[in-house]
């Protein structure tokens, strides 16, 4: 392992408790994707990003830093870094993604908003109150911190009168739909992935696509949230031929991403295995999770073209 688990988990839990996100980034940065969309603030139905796509460039930079520190004397200072991070957020100092990386991360939430509009869905956005849902801290077992954070998010929903949340990634969907009802008494917000909403509503087929893609199911969508058929129906409706890798749907193969923060080498090995499975079927691959996208892309190293499903759908709907 690179850094002590206790310190890494502690920093993430401290950040969630003190700053509302495991990796705090400024509200201006996290909401930048919406600046040209004139989305109304709040409403009964809101698009909730949970900041997952926006955080991915920062996660990647931190993992790269962790790999550079591995085996050096500085790695022994992780306990000190945790104590310091309680006083001042170290993320802006340690992780500085490039403008291009940030712009790419912003493309998905903007594309999803345009798709929902094209499908006639009325929705708002919570801007700086669109908080990270707590997935990584939950995975690491920081349950009391995550429970307090879930109550904070639920209070925000109540303050805005939110009745339905439309999510854009599997981790936020799982947290809000499956975990929050266990943590927050009376949590009765309806939670759906935008893929489910679009599959139900239908999309205008303004610019039918052609081509063959291989689909990579997210573990949580496929095995926890039953979001399996919707992406296939949407891609087919956009004109694409969807092909399946050997392990698919409920038996999809992990991208390795969840191990990246603590064990980057193990994550890379799993990702390489998955890339080989996907590449054997088609040279173009569709993902639907930001963690899958970056982890598989790193492993593919240009040998497999990977794009988020929202980009295919946006092109098909010409929105």
């Amino acid at each position, binding site marked *: *392992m690179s850094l002590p*688990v*206790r310190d890494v*988990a502690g920093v993430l839990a401290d950040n969630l408790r003190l700053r509302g996100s495991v990796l705090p980034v400024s509200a201006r940065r996290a909401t930048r994707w919406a600046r040209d969309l004139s989305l109304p603030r709040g409403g009964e139905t809101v698009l909730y990003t949970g900041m997952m796509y926006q955080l991915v460039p920062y996660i990647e930079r931190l993992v790269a830093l962790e790999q550079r520190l591995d085996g050096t004397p500085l790695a022994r200072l992780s306990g000190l870094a945790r104590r310091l991070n309680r006083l001042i957020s170290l993320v802006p100092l340690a992780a500085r993604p490039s403008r291009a990386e940030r712009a790419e991360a912003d493309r998905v939430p903007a594309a999803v908003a345009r798709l929902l509009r094209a499908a006639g869905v009325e929705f708002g956005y919570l801007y700086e109150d669109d908080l990270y849902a707590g997935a990584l801290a*939950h*995975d*690491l*077992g*920081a*349950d009391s911190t995550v429970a307090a954070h879930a109550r904070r998010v639920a209070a925000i929903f109540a303050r805005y009168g939110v009745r339905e949340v439309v999510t854009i990634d599997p981790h936020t969907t799982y947290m809000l739909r499956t975990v929050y009802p266990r943590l927050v008494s009376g949590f009765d917000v309806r939670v759906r992935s935008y893929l489910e909403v679009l599959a139900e509503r239908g999309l205008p087929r303004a610019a039918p696509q052609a081509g063959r893609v291989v689909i990579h199911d997210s*573990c949580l969508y496929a*095995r*926890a949230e039953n979001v399996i058929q919707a992406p296939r129906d949407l891609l087919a409706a956009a004109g694409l031929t969807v092909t399946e890798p050997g392990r698919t749907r*409920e*038996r*999809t*193969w*992990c991208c*390795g*991403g*969840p*191990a990246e923060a*603590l*064990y980057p080498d*193990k994550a890379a090995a*799993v990702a390489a*295995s*998955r890339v080989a499975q996907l590449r054997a079927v088609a040279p173009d691959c569709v993902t639907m999770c930001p963690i899958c996208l970056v982890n598989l892309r790193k492993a593919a190293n240009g040998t497999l073209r990977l794009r988020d499903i929202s980009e295919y759908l946006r092109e098909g709907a010409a929105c």
Partner: protein
Amino acid sequence: MSAGAPNPGTARLVVRPDLAAELHQLGDFDAEACMNCGVCTATCPLGIDVLPRRVLRDAVLGLDDRVRAAGEAVFSCLLCRACEADCPAGVHISEDVRLLRRWLLTEEGSR
């Protein structure tokens, strides 16, 4: 508490009878339903030999030294649920692993 004097040539095992009870207090720990068939281990993308069935068995038996020694495997787990897709006993393996992480990060688990 000791399991008794070890036989010559065997490892000494320290049993902590309340370990499973501590895990139950943390959440819906259901590793007792595991039949140790090994389907989970065969389907694990990481291919770690102790994960998940051996770790779960050790936890149920109260072998806390072994559980703590398997910390890297427990924190490596992807929580991808590939193991759950074919588990004939319907064990909520990823939640059990998550609870083991929580236990390991507490003072109790990291002694």
